[in-house]
């Protein structure tokens, strides 16, 4: 119903994009691509039922990629004046002169993309007072869950809307708009000198797509259930990963599934298409058209339509993610899978997952837990950013609940779990039916074969 307003916003971006291409032409390049985005956002942070920060912003910028004799250069700017665009085009052309020639440096041609409904007009229409109330409701839900929830680090409601346009000298001219809403909270529960933390997060493209009470309660429950936690003795036991923890592990596989990493010999999965790389229970899918995920978009950031892809089927590796460059380099009819993505207009399109998830199984979470004789149910991990995605070796701090005879026996913290991502994937013994997304990654509860839990 707001389609006209949206069209006006993206028309303006497409016009500036056209000007950027002209500036690139004047700088003497062979091919050029402009990526433009305008992002408006509002962040409300509350603590103790008062607003701590009200953060409002509009950001607009362009990233310009140019090719000259097979060499690629890139420059971005927030100055969209004709002089600003001309200076950016000259900088991009100068950068191109410094890089190596590569015959696979190409731009995609035109291919039509099905639109995707990512806009909820009520996100913008909702008054600020109501957004502040939403942030306060997250905090109330957390504190109301249990009196031992004593402190709230930050309860935040965030929303925004964005317009994106991609134009290139091969005739690509695409644009789309979207809205987003998210809620997050991080809390501390205290009892008898023990202080434990819990957090939760929810995202949706629609205003009614997040449940602020659930976010508050979940964070509170996570903190409270850890009260009194201690390390355990070093032991090899079954692990059960909470969906949010499983999704964090899954995200580590993103780089290894990129054709760029494969072509450069930096992937665990290089040369293994058709081989068993995971338990037969594992299905890994990347789908940029899944509107539940934060990574949903009709096209990637090169203007190539997004498509669903099964990357691991029944444990067998099916293929990799591609952008235009890696597909050209692969040859043999390979095509971009619509995974040329950027962090913002400040970056070049690199191979990345859009919405990466591990498909749900058929076992209920309760049954999956009840079958564990002795194990460790992991609800939070620390140091995931230190995991080496190239070797796959991981060793991270962990907290959660010890399982005995299928029941929660006591809380545990201050221990470490270690192994290799490939072993972890092969060791999956059960996949629950409770798939959940956290931003652009999703996973259900997983039960793993025994691994070492390092403790006292």
């Amino acid at each position, binding site marked *: 119903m707001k389609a006209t307003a949206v069209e006006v916003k993206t028309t303006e971006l497409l016009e500036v994009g056209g000007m950027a291409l002209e500036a690139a032409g004047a700088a003497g390049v062979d091919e050029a691509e402009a990526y433009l985005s305008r992002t408006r956002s509002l962040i409300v942070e509350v603590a103790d039922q*008062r607003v*701590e*920060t*009200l*953060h*409002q912003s*509009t*950001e607009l*910028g362009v990233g310009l990629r140019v090719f000259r004799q097979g060499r*690629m250069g*890139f*420059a*971005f*700017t*927030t*100055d969209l004046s004709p002089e*600003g665009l001309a200076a950016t085009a000259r900088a991009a052309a*100068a*950068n191109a*002169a*410094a*890089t*190596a020639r*590569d015959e696979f440096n190409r731009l995609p041609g035109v291919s039509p993309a099905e639109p995707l409904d990512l806009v909820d007009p009520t996100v913008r229409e909702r008054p*600020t007072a109501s957004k502040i109330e939403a942030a306060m409701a997250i905090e109330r839900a957390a504190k109301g869950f249990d009196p031992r929830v*004593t402190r709230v*680090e930050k309860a935040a409601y965030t929303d925004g809307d964005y317009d994106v346009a991609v134009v290139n000298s091969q005739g690509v001219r695409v644009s789309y708009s979207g809205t987003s809403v998210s809620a997050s909270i991080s809390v501390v529960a205290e009892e008898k000198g*023990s*202080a434990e*933390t819990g957090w939760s997060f929810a995202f949706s493209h629609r205003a009614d797509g997040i449940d602020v009470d659930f976010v508050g309660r979940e964070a509170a429950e996570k903190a409270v259930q850890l009260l009194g936690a201690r*390390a355990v003795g*070093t032991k*090899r036991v079954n692990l059960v990963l909470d969906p949010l923890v499983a999704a964090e592990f899954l995200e580590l596989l993103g780089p290894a599934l990129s054709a760029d990493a494969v*072509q450069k*010999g*930096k992937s665990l999965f290089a040369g293994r298409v058709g081989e068993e790389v995971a338990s037969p229970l594992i299905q890994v899918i990347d789908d940029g058209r899944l509107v539940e995920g934060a990574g949903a978009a009709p096209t990637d950031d090169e203007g190539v339509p997004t498509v669903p892809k099964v990357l691991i089927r029944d444990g067998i590796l099916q293929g990799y993610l591609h952008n235009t460059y890696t597909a050209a380099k692969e040859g043999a009819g390979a095509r971009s899978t619509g995974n040329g993505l950027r962090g913002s207009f400040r970056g*070049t399109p690199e191979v990345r997952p859009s919405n990466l998830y591990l498909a749900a199984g058929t076992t209920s979470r309760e049954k999956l837990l009840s079958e564990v004789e002795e194990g460790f149910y992991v609800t939070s991990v*620390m*140091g995931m950013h*230190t995991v*080496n995605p*190239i*070797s*796959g*070796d*991981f*060793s*991270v*701090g962990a907290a959660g609940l010890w399982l005995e005879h299928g029941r929660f026996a006591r809380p545990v*913290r*201050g*221990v*470490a779990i*270690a*192994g*290799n991502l490939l072993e972890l994937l092969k060791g999956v013994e059960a996949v629950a039916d409770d798939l959940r997304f956290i931003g652009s990654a999703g996973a259900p509860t997983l039960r793993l074969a025994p691994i*070492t839990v*390092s*403790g*006292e």
Partner: protein
Amino acid sequence: MIDPRDLGSVLEEALKRGGDFAEAFVEHRRVQALICEADRLERAATGLDQGAGIRVVQGETSAYAFTNDLSAQGLKAAADVVAAAAAAGHSGVVELPLAARQASFAPEIRRLPEDVPLEEKAGVVERANRAARSADGQVRQVTVNYRELDQEVTIANSLGFVAEDRRIRTVLALNAVAAKDGVIQTGYESVGGLAGPDLVDGDVPERLAGKAGKRAARMLSARPAPSGRMPVVMAAEAGGTMVHEACGHGLEADLAQKGLSVYANRHGEKVASDLVTVVDDGTLPQRYGSERFDDEGVPVRKRVLIERGILKDYMHSLITARKEGVEPNGCGRRESYRHVPIPRMSNTMIAPGSDDPGRIVADTRRGLYVTKMGGGQVNTANGDFVFEVAEGFLIENGQVGAAVRGATLTGNGPQALGIVDRVGSDLGFTIGTCGKDGQGVAVSDAQPTLRIPELIVGGTAHDPEGEENL
């Protein structure tokens, strides 16, 4: 760039409907990045990022808005947005005219980014690539990353001062990948500072590349790390991730004031061993976390946080200092004009002690010797921290033994620092981008060689018989 004298009217605009304090942060940032991978210069990128963040603080509530439009009109529009967000009430007065702030030191930039041709920078990257590839025959892939940041900031606030700073930071980072018999390992090295491209003059690229390439190859034959509780000796060259996580974050005043830190309300108390003195110093020449003013315009200084085990100070922003009634100490930092300033570290270190570093390993019967730390993380509420061991060796009868891989060390800040029993006379730095509340800032961390008698090593080699088979 806007004339700083014109910012007074922007501040008045921001305070027109109420507020105790107003601030304008104007930033003009240029970046240059070069990436070499697959044996060729693959990416060359340039960026111009400019914008202004306007803030109004009323009581304990902050309103913040930013814009990319640096015209007088654009700044006024952003000021209007924050003015509308600040609830009506007491209205502060802007102290005019704005007086220029003086810094406590002047950084020495020997060569400016714009004075060094792009070809010379590309040459540095290509030399590093070749050196890493020739460091060992098992090196299969090398990624070299060169980055320059040239950030000009003007910070004015209603207290009546304006600070201007130009911060030039240069980083050269290198990741070498070695492979053998289906095993892949990596070696990472980086150098960075508040410095121009001269930071990588001379044989810096070759030395860095040689270390990264050799480490990647060495890790191929490393054994799985042990698991369980044991003595850990950290070499000075391993860097300072441990101090950053074990007590750095917990001494940031915003977390402490909210009761979210195990170090909250412990001023004057014993929180570490007598051998431990922790300093955060943003004035160290050329260090990556240094700058003349913090991002609220307060001159940066040296802060002694823990002195011989006694907690002396926290790191403050203007807001946390006001809340506590203390002088701001120059720790209010932000990633860019898009972010609100919060208390952050700069260059954080455990001060050197008096032990001969070589004796510390020799006096340790069994344990883990850490020669390179990676990243880390902390739960400030209870003090639990982890950090990655990028390179480690077993200690056997006081000798450095076999290399081990794949371990994280887990500990608790006050407990671990409380039992430090040896502190060496050396000091080694590492650089990093520290993340907090979604904002990344440039920091460096440093430690002397030191020993912690008990930390949990999270390896994969588990022997139920215990430590005799370490």
